[in-house]
């Protein structure tokens, strides 16, 4: 009896654990049948701005190397794909593979499985954690098409893979311009006399430094005297550590605006600002005023957006229009809707008309190429970004 109980209990434990990371497949069968009906009737369906014949409804699988509900990357991609499903342009199968170290072995296996099934016209995945797995599978299945967003590690090496990356340097420039203008406007609550703004990054790596590069360049374009305090948490999960950095930035460097670019940990900077009554926070990736608690949202001026979803819709527009981008590195900026800045809520309330006009002008200049923002991804760009960072330290 006892033994049986023991076995039963350990089995439960094993299954609970397996359950935690197991694939949760959501088949959008409804969409599929609708799409099929549409095909029969030969009707044209609308999606976004583009019109497309429903004959080329594409079967897409979206592999999430984490969990949905991050209110950021993964959700944004899902939202874009969902919009395409609704428009009848694709069918979608989403697989949540889990994001912990223990889940990692599953990523490669799942990639192999979906590639081998030959069910899909396109396999979508993203983030810097996937390229090694993707390269292996893409090489083994040259006829299968793949899309990876926010990574360009092996861009161009496989003809069946398209790398979509975002011009976070452009985004950084806009946010930097805005932060620079705001720190000068001492009539705004909690903006101090010191011309110092802050940046909390995840790692001292090209991706993060690309944001930072633009941020500093933008702020310096407003006023060359503006100093930027840059710290790295060397971590994307330790909110408390980011908070310690934030407190030090407010107390030691007199920062009054901090941009948090460190995943979940970045919110720690917002908490530091709230606790020290030190000024304002700027969010990243998604509109964080919507996801933070009321108190934190109240001190969040704006968020720099990476619109993964928009970029996927853009990609399908191009693909359906006959523009084959596979085998390329596609860099999306403001024009394509790949990046942007939140301009309603607190931005609208606290930014003066002059500031808004100046930010709009900066967006315009970056969009039409009048201003070319340096990038940490350029040859020697990361080193240049680090030098720039060291030169503007408060």
């Amino acid at each position, binding site marked *: 009896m006892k033994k049986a109980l023991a076995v039963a209990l350990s089995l439960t434990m094993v299954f609970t654990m397996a359950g*935690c990371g197991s694939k949760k497949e959501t088949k959008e069968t409804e969409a599929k049948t609708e799409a099929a009906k549409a095909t029969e009737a030969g009707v044209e369906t609308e999606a976004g701005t583009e019109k497309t014949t429903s004959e080329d409804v594409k079967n897409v699988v979206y592999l999430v190397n984490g969990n949905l509900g991050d209110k950021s990357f993964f959700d944004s991609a899902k939202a874009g794909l969902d919009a395409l499903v609704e428009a009848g342009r694709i069918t979608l199968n989403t697989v949540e593979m889990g994001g912990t170290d223990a889940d990692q072995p599953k990523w490669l296996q799942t990639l192999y499985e979906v590639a081998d099934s030959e069910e899909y016209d396109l396999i979508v995945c993203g983030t810097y954690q996937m390229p090694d797995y993707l390269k292996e599978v893409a090489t083994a299945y040259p006829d299968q098409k793949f899309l990876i967003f926010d990574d360009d590690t092996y861009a161009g090496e496989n003809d069946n893979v398209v790398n979509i990356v975002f011009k976070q340097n452009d985004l950084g420039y806009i946010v930097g311009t805005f932060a620079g203008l705001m720190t000068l406007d001492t009539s705004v609550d909690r903006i101090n006399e010191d011309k110092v703004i802050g940046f909390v990054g995840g790692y001292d790596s090209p991706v993060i430094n690309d944001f930072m590069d633009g941020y500093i360049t933008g702020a310096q374009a407003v006023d060359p005297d503006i100093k930027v305090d840059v710290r790295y948490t060397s971590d994307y*999960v330790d909110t408390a550590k980011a908070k310690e950095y934030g407190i030090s930035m407010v107390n030691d460097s007199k920062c009054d605006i901090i941009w948090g670019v460190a995943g*979940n940990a970045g*919110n720690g900077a917002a*908490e530091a600002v709230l606790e020290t009554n030190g000024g304002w926070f700027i969010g990243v990736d998604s509109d964080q005023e919507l996801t933070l*608690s009321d108190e934190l949202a109240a001190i969040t001026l704006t968020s720099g957006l990476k619109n993964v979803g928009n970029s996927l819709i853009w990609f399908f527009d191009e693909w359906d229009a006959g523009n084959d981008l596979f085998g390329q590195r596609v860099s999306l900026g403001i024009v394509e809707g790949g990046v942007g800045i939140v301009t309603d809520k607190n931005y609208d309330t606290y930014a003066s008309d002059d500031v808004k006009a100046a930010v709009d002008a900066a967006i315009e200049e970056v969009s039409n190429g009048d201003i070319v923002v340096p990038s940490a991804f350029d040859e020697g760009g990361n080193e240049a970004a680090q030098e720039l960072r060291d030169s503007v330290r408060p």
Partner: protein
Amino acid sequence: MNIFTTDFFFSIIRIATPILLATLAAVIGEKGGVSNIGLEGIMMMSALFGSLTAYWTGSWAVGLLAAMAVGLLEALLMGFFAFKLKTDIILVGTAVNMIGSGGTIFLVKVITNATMGKSLTSTTSLITKSLQVPSWNIPLIKDIPVIGKVISGHSLLTYIAFLLVFLTGVLLYKTPLGLNIRSVGENPNAASSVGVSVSRVRYITIGIGGVLAGLGGAYMSMYYAMGWSLDMVAGRGFIALAAQSMGGGEPIGSMLAALIFGFAQALGIKVSATGVDSNLVAPIPYIVTILSLVVFALNQRRVEKRRHASALK
């Protein structure tokens, strides 16, 4: 820039608190012969349920109790697997740590989906200042220059943590239960032969550890950060294991070890302001660990040698 300001010393205590709470759990555990490497996982689970309960009930105190209860339950469950079903306790601890990461995100999505109709992946949006464990400005002491600024104004949990250092010492060395815990830890067979229920003592040992780790988890999600987010404990439960061994397994020593970790991280944060490469700043706590362990080992050896020498006389 002057590094050694009052807020530097204040931050040492703030950083050391969660480590200290988990370290005390490890101290009691090791004394009782229970190597609980699942402290990290327990802290994550408690952090989650503490913040959720605080939100549901609108009271930080109830949230704190829930965090302790969850810590206790999880520890007892570990005990059940380890003592009753004879699973290797290290494996049980590993399982608890994995559940602390993958299981919490699973649970928070299921629970918030059931209670609020939308699945959240963190409780950051739920915790407001009023749901955080309050900080306490100690009367009189707060007016003392310098010292007041360092000692006063911490979270209630910080003062509880330092009080618990003292209580842990009393428990281990001044009570019958403490004697039982230590004897079971030293030699379970001998303890058993004089009528001590070894398994009961072990359950109590791991249970106390669970409650302490639960407090540490609550500190993380209900004071240090606002709300729980995935993997937010970020290794503090493991650092506690190192602090326990650095402190020679004694409450006071372990408290000092936890403070050394706090010092190391606080130093890293201040040093980063001067523009030192973040890749050099990040490992400071670990370098301090290694150095401290070396110092500790050398000290132990000297003590041993002296003891041998005096024994020969």
